C-alpha cells in the first residue's frame, strides 16, 4: 500500500488549535465515516468513531488539536499581542507566518531585545498588515486563535511540516482503520481535543467509553541530531513503543503485546524512555478503575517547531503496528 501523502498533507493543513477543533473534526469525520459503524462528537468536541466488535473495548486516541496562539490585545496601531495555547517557544515563533480560522494571515515579530535569550512571548506581536486598530478588528477579535502557517514538504525519506504533532497520529489511526479487516475487538477511534493543554479530551472520552485497553498514537522526540541530549530514539529506526514519559509508565501487558506483534510481523521498532512530556494515555490509564494503556509513538525531530520531521518508513511501521494490535484478539 502506497504512502498516502495527500491525506497527510490535508490533515496537517487544517485549522484546529486546542479548544477550536471543529474544522479538523469535520475533515476527519468525512475521511473515516464509511469505515466505521458509528460516529459521535462529545461535549468537549472529541470525535469518537466506533467499529463494533464482540470482544474487548479498545480505545485508540490521537489528538487533533494543535499548539497555537490566542489574541489578548489589539493596540492602536493594529498590532496583535498574544498568549500561548500549548507549548509555544519564543525562539521558534520569531519571524513565522500564522493563519487565523477566517484565513487572515499574519507575521510574528519581536520588539528589539538586547539579548535574544531574554525574549518572551510578551515581547512579541503579530503583524497582520492592518493600518490601525479599527482595520485590525475587522479581521481579528480578541480571543481568536491562530496557528503556524502550513508549509508541507516531503521527499523519499521524510515529511517536514508544522503539526505532525499530532496530525500524523491522526493519519496513522485513519490509515490503520482503513486497512483493518474485521476484528473481534470493539474499537473506539478517538480524535481527541485539548491534548496540548493538559490531556483534557482523552480524559472525558475514556470516562464515557470505559475501555478495557487504551492506545495513544502521538509523536515523540529524537536524540539523533548534532549534540542532541542523549535519547535512544531516532528517525528511520522504526515505530517507537513507549515505556515511559512524565504522564505514564505504560502497562506491561499492552507494551509487551505491542512488542510481540512487532516481532511477529517484522515491524521495525524501538523502545522509548522519554524523560519529559506526556500524551493521551496518561489520562486514559487513570480513568475509573484504571485502563491498561500503551503508546505508539512516531519518532519526530523538532517537535513543536514549524519543521517537524518524521520518516515515512517509521510512519508506515506505526500504521502496521497499530493495525496489528487492533486486529489481534485482546
Amino acid at each position, binding site marked *: 500500500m502506497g504512502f498516502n501523502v495527500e491525506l497527510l498533507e490535508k490533515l496537517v493543513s487544517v485549522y484546529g488549535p486546542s479548544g477550536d477543533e471543529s474544522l479538523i473534526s469535520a475533515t476527519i469525520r468525512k475521511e473515516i465515516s464509511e469505515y466505521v459503524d458509528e460516529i459521535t462528537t462529545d461535549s468537549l468536541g472529541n470525535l469518537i468513531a466506533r467499529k463494533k466488535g464482540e470482544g474487548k473495548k479498545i480505545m485508540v486516541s490521537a489528538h487533533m488539536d494543535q499548539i497555537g496562539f490566542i489574541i489578548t490585545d489589539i493596540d492602536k496601531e493594529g498590532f496583535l499581542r498574544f498568549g500561548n495555547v500549548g507549548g509555544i517557544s519564543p525562539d521558534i515563533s520569531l519571524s513565522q507566518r500564522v493563519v487565523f480560522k477566517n484565513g487572515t494571515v499574519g507575521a510574528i515579530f519581536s520588539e528589539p531585545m538586547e539579548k535574544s535569550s531574554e525574549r518572551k512571548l510578551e515581547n512579541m506581536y503579530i503583524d497582520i498588515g492592518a493600518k490601525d486598530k479599527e482595520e485590525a478588528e475587522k479581521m481579528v477579535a480578541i480571543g481568536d486563535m491562530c496557528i503556524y502557517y502550513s508549509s508541507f514538504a516531503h521527499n523519499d525519506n521524510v515529511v517536514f511540516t508544522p503539526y505532525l504533532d499530532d496530525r500524523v497520529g491522526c493519519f496513522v489511526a485513519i490509515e490503520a482503520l482503513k486497512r483493518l479487516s474485521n476484528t473481534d475487538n470493539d474499537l473506539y477511534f478517538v480524535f481527541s481535543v485539548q491534548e496540548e493543554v493538559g490531556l483534557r479530551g482523552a480524559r472525558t472520552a475514556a470516562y464515557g467509553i470505559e475501555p478495557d485497553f487504551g492506545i495513544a498514537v502521538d509523536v515523540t522526540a529524537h536524540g539523533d541530531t548534532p549534540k542532541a541530549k542523549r535519547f*535512544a530514539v531516532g528517525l528511520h529506526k522504526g515505530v517507537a513503543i513507549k515505556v515511559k514519559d512524565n504522564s505514564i*509508565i505504560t502497562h*506491561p501487558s499492552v507494551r509487551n503485546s505491542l512488542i510481540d506483534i512487532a516481532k511477529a510481523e517484522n515491524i521495525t521498532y524501538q523502545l522509548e*524512555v522519554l524523560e519529559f512530556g506526556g500524551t493521551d494515555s496518561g489520562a486514559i*490509564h487513570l480513568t475509573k478503575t*484504571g*485502563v491498561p494503556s500503551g503508546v505508539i509513538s512516531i519518532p519526530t525531530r523538532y517537535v513543536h517547531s514549524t519543521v517537524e520531521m518524521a520518516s515515512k518508513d517509521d510512519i508506515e511501521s506505526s500504521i502496521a503496528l497499530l493495525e496489528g494490535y487492533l486486529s489481534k484478539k485482546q
Partner: protein
Amino acid sequence: METKDLLEILSNGNGVSGFEFNLKNEIIDAFGKYTDSVRLDRLGNIIAHKKGSGNGAVKILMAAHMDEIGFMVTDIDKKGFIHFTNIGGIDPRTILAQEVTIHGKEDILGLIGSKPPHLQDQSEQEKSIKMEDMIIDTGFDKEALSELISIGDSITVNRKMISLLNNRVSGKAMDDRAGVAALFETMKELEKINHHADVYFVATIQEEVTMAGALTATYGINPDIGIAVDVGFGRTPELNNSNSIEMGKGPGVLLGGNIHPGLRKRLVAVAGDYNVPVQTNVWPGPSGTDARAIQITREGVPALVLSIPLRYMHTSVEVLDLKDVSHTAKLLAFFSASIEENEMEGLLCF
C-alpha cells in the same frame, strides 16, 4: 509469617513504579492468610478484603504503596555502558558507587560509575555529578549486553535489609513497603478484634509517579473512609523538629487539608484509649501520599494519613524502627474496630 520477615522479603525484592508485578506473589500470599479474599486488579493493585460484622455497611480503605523509586535504562552506548534515568525523586548524590541490578531478560549486576578521584583536580570534587553524567558498568560489551537487557528495563539498587540496634532495620524501599508490612500486621490484629466495618487493604502501584494505583483502586472500592499508610521524615540532626518526627515514638498522624478533621479526632482518641503513642505532623494541602488521590475520587472520600517515621527517605539505606510499624498496625486495627455505621454521619460532620 512475622511482619519483619515480610518486610525483609519486600525490601530486598524489586518493584520500581510500573514494575510492581515482581512483588505480587509475596504480597498476595501474605495478605491472603488473614483476609477473606485477595485479588490483583487490572492495573496491578493488590486488594485484600476483610469482612466486618456490618455486612459492608461501612467500608474502610487502607492503602500502602508497594512501588519503590529506582531507575530505568535509557540507552546502551558503544562501550557497553548503560545510561539511565530516575523513576521517582532521587538525589543524584546518593547513587554514586552504588551496586545495582538491571532487571532485564535476567538480573544483571551493574555498578554506577564515576571518574576516579585521582584524575580530577580538587575543585572538581566540589561539584556534584549529574545523573546524566553517570553510567552503569556491567562488565559486558554492548553486543553481549544488548542480548540481555533493553531500553526501558527497570533498575534497583542492590541492598539487603540489615538489622541495626534497637529493633531498627535499614534497607531500600522501606518507603513504602514498611506501610505494606503495617497493613499485614493490621490484618493480624483485626483477627483478634470484632469489627463492624469492612476493611480493604490495598498495596498500591505507582504512588511515586502518578498515584495511578490509589486513584483507580479507590474508584473501584468506593470506600467511606480512606487511610494512606506511608512513611514520614524520621528526625536526624539536619532536619527541623517542625518537619520531622521522632523514631520509635509511634506514627505521625497527619494534620492538614488532606485530612478529615472529625476522623482524625477519632483516631487520636483511639490512640489515647489504647495507649498507642502517636506524633503530629503537619502538611497544608494535598499530601505527597496516596491520600492525595483518595480524597478526590468520585464524590470525595474522607482521608487520613499515618506516617511511619523513616530516616534517609529515598536513599538505599532508609532506617525505621519496627516498633513504629506495630504501633501503626495497632492503631489502624483499633481505629477500624471503633467505626460503626450509625455514627458515621456525626463523625464526618464538619
